[in-house]
């Protein structure tokens, strides 16, 4: 692909994640968009195509009432944890198709406290499944992690190491929610939620917003000193035999996750290997998920995680820095904003202006990964 067909991130903005009763989802989205526009040095009038996502906090296209009634095409997407990635994919495709040369992707959410409330019918499941107490995302993460630790001989302490690193990174990040470091012992000894996972190994639904300005080809270099190339973005749904949330039954293994498909496709399109990644974002709804995603995306082999974590290899100064902003564990998970938070962090890392801990050595290859219900994953490779 020639440079004129490539899509670049030229601006990014983010409303701090966490809890703030004084702002709505739309308020946060507006702030993130204005920040992204200012970062790119463009005006809302310059945006030729926009896509927004929100799971529970309103129709994104109504933001035009706040930003300006310019007549811009503005599409809404709703893809669970892959919502942010879907907004970026839709904008990038529109730019490549000649719809515009400058586009905007935005995601925001503000969730109620506590575990996500789910309806059996919405997932095509019978009522008994929820009535008998089996329809909980937390159970799924625990069951998948329990089996994974067993199959690969990994000790539960590895789960605490993931969370401790997340809170350590979050403590130094101005946009993170959980800013207090916790020791591995504090994490292991916190309240049991669903073994092997404890309270501090889970992220919480929260609130936040993030936005990106994307530009096509040369326009990107006119606007931005260091545009970040969207080298690839692959979105996949599950295939037969994957082990997903809300499954009353599973076929006998092996169980292949859509994360494997999405990561393979993202690396193939980018022409890079997992070993080339210098800063990564992995969906860490809980410690177990991140641990499993490390291997499913190819960043390490199955069973190698324990050594990797113990050796500090996933720390900002390590070989494969993971979730340098603290991920979902420190940021919480406003569903439609979470994926764009990942882009925000990786873009800023690759530009050498991380809001929190900067990965040393001027990283040139970044990676993002999201995974969610009902068996979806999106991965991207970003380069400078």
């Amino acid at each position, binding site marked *: 692909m020639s440079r004129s067909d490539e899509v670049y991130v030229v601006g990014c903005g983010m409303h701090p994640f966490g809890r703030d009763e004084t702002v709505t989802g739309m308020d946060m989205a507006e702030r993130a968009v204005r920040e992204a526009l200012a970062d790119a040095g463009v005006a809302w009038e310059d945006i030729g195509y926009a896509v927004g996502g929100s799971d529970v906090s309103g129709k994104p296209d109504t933001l035009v009432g706040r930003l300006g009634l310019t007549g811009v095409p503005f599409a809404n997407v709703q893809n669970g944890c892959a919502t942010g990635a879907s907004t970026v994919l839709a904008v990038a495709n529109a730019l490549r198709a000649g719809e515009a040369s400058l586009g905007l992707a935005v995601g925001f959410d503000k969730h109620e406290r506590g575990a996500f409330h789910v309806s059996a019918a919405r997932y095509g499941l019978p009522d008994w499944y*929820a009535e*008998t107490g089996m329809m909980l995302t937390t159970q799924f993460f625990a069951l998948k992690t329990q*089996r994974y630790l067993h199959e690969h001989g990994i000790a539960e302490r590895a789960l605490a190491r993931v969370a401790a690193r997340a809170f350590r990174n979050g403590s130094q990040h101005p946009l993170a929610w959980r800013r207090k470091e916790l020791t591995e012992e504090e994490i292991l000894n916190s309240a*049991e939620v669903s073994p092997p996972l404890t309270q501090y190994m889970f992220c919480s639904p929260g609130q936040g917003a993030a936005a990106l300005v994307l530009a096509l080809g040369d326009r990107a270099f006119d606007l931005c000193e260091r545009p970040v190339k969207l080298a690839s973005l692959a979105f996949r749904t599950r295939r*037969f035999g994957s082990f997903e949330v809300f499954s009353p*039954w*599973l076929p*006998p293994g092996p169980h292949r996750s859509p994360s494997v498909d999405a990561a393979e496709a993202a690396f193939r399109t980018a022409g890079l290997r997992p070993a080339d990644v210098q800063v990564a974002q992995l969906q860490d709804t809980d410690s177990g998920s991140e641990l499993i995603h490390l291997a499913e995306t190819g960043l390490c082999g199955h069973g190698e995680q324990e050594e990797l974590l113990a050796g500090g290899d996933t720390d900002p100064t390590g070989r494969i820095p993971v979730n340098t902003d603290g991920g979902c564990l420190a940021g919480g998970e406003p569903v439609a904003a979470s994926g764009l938070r990942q882009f925000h962090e990786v873009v800023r890392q690759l530009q050498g202006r991380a809001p929190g801990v900067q990965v040393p050595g001027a990283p040139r290859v970044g990676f993002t990964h999201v995974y969610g219900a009902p068996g979806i994953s999106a991965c991207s490779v970003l380069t400078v």
Partner: protein
Amino acid sequence: MISRLIDEDLFESVNPPRLTGARCSGCATVVFPRQGSCPKCSDGAMSAHVLPVSGRVWSWTLQAFQPKPPYRPPTGGYRPYHVGYVDLGEVLVEARLEVPRAEIRIGLPVRLTTVTAYHDEDGTEVLTFAFRTDGNGER
């Protein structure tokens, strides 16, 4: 005491309990609960298929906090309970596990049983399926 099954379609019989799923005539995929089309191949016809009653715990966890509705706690209120997948050979079934914490482990032989899920407003006991430690299972 009057009792009913939480969903008649799940059971082939109650005494002794047998679960019924469906099997694809094309690719032999077994699903639970039964459904009209095969999630793996587009060719086969699905027909009712009675599941084995014994298997092994494939994974397990504890539900340590009370779920939000539509979960319905038993009379006397919510108490933490185990859930897991049981490997029945041709299919893994997710179920409540009536196994004490001290005994529960991956690989534990278990056998199908029924437990009280909750009571209807008129007092009818509502039964659902579960697995308990299989005393006759091989070690």
